[in-house]
């Protein structure tokens, strides 16, 4: 597993009093976001220093220029790619959060099959399928042949492993960045057995 790597240390910009953070879940289960909220009352202290741009927490639809982007989930469709690129274009620091973003995780289990096999199983062959056809509405984003971790498409600055990463790990990595330190997670936060 890739660990936190040395990049330029984040510093708070002078123009904005608060550090701006955006978050999103691509092909993920929102479990990482739930774990983020598990920091409980500590989020009050955090909000004294940060404000949220695009995030499922506030339902803002597009990412504004930000300091930190937290990305949960892998890339499974064209929309995921657009969202990820929007984040990369707007965030100074991108953090890959959780097993799916880092190495594909559960969504990547479909990589053992062809896309055709997956769609036929779900929409044609499964018992109880009504009106069997593979959905082709233009509103529906097309699926990628294979599920990919996000670092294969954009540059990722830091990796926060775990399924999900514990709330303490979110607090630690954000605190380190807010205080201008190179993030570093102690071994206890990287141990899952």
């Amino acid at each position, binding site marked *: 597993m890739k660990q936190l*790597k040395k990049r330029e240390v984040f510093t708070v910009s002078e123009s904005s009093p608060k550090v701006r953070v955006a978050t999103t879940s691509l092909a993920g289960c929102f479990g990482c976001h739930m774990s983020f909220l598990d920091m409980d009352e500590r989020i009050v202290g955090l909000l004294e220093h940060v404000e949220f741009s695009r995030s499922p927490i506030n339902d803002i639809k597009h990412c504004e220029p930000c300091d930190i982007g937290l990305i949960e989930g892998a890339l499974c469709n*064209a929309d995921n*790619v657009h969202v990820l690129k929007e984040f990369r274009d707007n965030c100074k620091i991108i953090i890959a959060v959780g097993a799916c973003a880092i190495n594909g995780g559960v969504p990547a289990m479909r990589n053992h099959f*062809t*896309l*055709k096999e997956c*769609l036929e199983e779900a929409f044609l062959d499964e018992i109880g399928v009504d009106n069997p056809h*593979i*959905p*082709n509405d*233009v509103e529906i*984003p*097309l*699926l*990628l*042949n*294979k599920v*990919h971790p996000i670092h*294969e*498409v*954009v*540059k990722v600055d830091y990796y926060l492993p775990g399924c999900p990463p514990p709330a303490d790990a979110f607090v630690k990595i954000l605190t380190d960045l807010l205080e201008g330190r190179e993030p570093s997670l102690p071994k206890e936060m990287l141990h899952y057995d």
Partner: protein
Amino acid sequence: MTPYSSEHLLHVLHAHQQRFHYISDQAICEIATRLHLPRAQVEAVTEFYAFFHRSPRGRFDILFSNCTSCGNLTLMQQLCDRLNVCMDQTSSDGLISISQTSCIGMCDHGASALINGLTVTSLSEQIIEEMGNLIESETPVSAWPTSWFQIGNNIRKEGLLLTEALEPGAALKAIAGRSSDEILNEITASGLKGRGGAGFSTGLKWKLCRDAASDSRYVVCNADEGEPGTFKDRILLNSHADTLFEGMTVCGKVIGASQGYLYLRGEYRYMLDALLTTLQNRREAGLLGNNVLGSGFDFDIAVVVGAGAYICGEESALIESIEEKPGIPRIRPPFPVTSGLWGKPTVVNNVETLVAAAGIVLHGHHWFETSGTWQSKGSKLLSVSGDCARAGIYEYPFGVTVAQILEDAGAEDVQAVQIGGPAGRLIGAESFTNHIAFEDIATGGSFMIFDTSRDLLAVIGNFTHFFDHESCGFCTPCRVGTTLLKNGLDKVCSGHGTAHDIDELQRTAALVSRRSHCGLGMTAPNPIRDGLKVFPQLFEARLLHQEMEPEFNLDASLEEARSLTNRDDAEAHL
């Protein structure tokens, strides 16, 4: 102990593969029952070695070397086109299968291949055309022109070892009546160091083995010469086999072993019969077997033939292979000198080391130590190949400069030299004044020359693919890391790399070399690291000047979904 046991698992599988062209599930069960081995072990060994197959190969099974010196994949494609088959796919009538294999040690003979395990060299378009005809008419390989199978020695320069034609038994007679300590002192005083590349003191290795507490010990000769560009052991096995066996016998006498093994790489199987004849002659002359030369010392030598696994050149993997297991390196320590073959103290020495040892006990250590440098005594056989007028074997005293070798080999416009094979070092013109010696540029013997007409990134790519293919898969840093290095370098070579990819290559290279289980992984990133250090401009010239480029084609990745949904709108593209 028979000199070539037909019951050894590797030999049984080889015979089966030759006869039936693959190892079926049923065959695995039968072989396991017959040899009293676990079924899982037979299956694991079958899967591990490249020359055994679980699905049928052709009656003509052809493996083209993909080495930068003895490979020519254009010729392979020519034969594929001629016979209308694809690489790695056995033709539907079971006639032919064509694949690639790692260097087969014929770098001084031009493009080469293995046909049903036999070596053909000096391939040309014309020979490929004739070969196509012979295969189509199903002419057995035994009836093919014998000239195709001729393998010469190409000795270009002789030194201490090669001028020496040791009379069989001469070294054994020289040590008759001398104690183990006296012989050991002779070897140690000569300063002989292992010739396989690592350069461990031979005298010390023998002493450690002799002094390890045990009721039995073994001598193993490592003739698994797999490093691309190396073929010196081939020459020694061909013309100095007697001296080699003499060296093994001397070692056996010193350490108190009664059994020796020669582990011969599968690619050199064509020499097996001659080696067995030499062993038989020695046995008849009283130089092997019970009571060697009437001294009361029993010693015999058996040959085990590998089956296409570079990793078996690593001594503990080689030991595992002799023990009829997959060639996965052991955790060291304990080192083989204390716990080797079947857990017994074992000396594993390179062919060249044992040949030198025989000479030293015959002539005394002065004969040896007057040659070479202060820290590197004696001579070194170099396998010179690549872009030069005179490829072949050159024996030099240690301390010779790279420039001298290049001049002797008739190499012009040299861009780079890979010394010690892909696991060794890649050097440019600024290092040609350096010396071949343990204290300067150490080498197991491979010396590959690349002139300015070569695409050096393609050469580095070849080496990187080699390690990816040969990683035994046991440890994650090497198994995954060699593939990441291959993918990363391919991306740069194909013009899609960015500065970020170079950073990632450097980072992965450091991790793989630091965290791998054995020497294969530790040295696998060398071509990339040396390349980036010595020829950074070659990498720079291929880079895209942007921060990051995806590792795959995003739009192509939607192709399957587009065809399943019949969509081609703007949203259906990336």
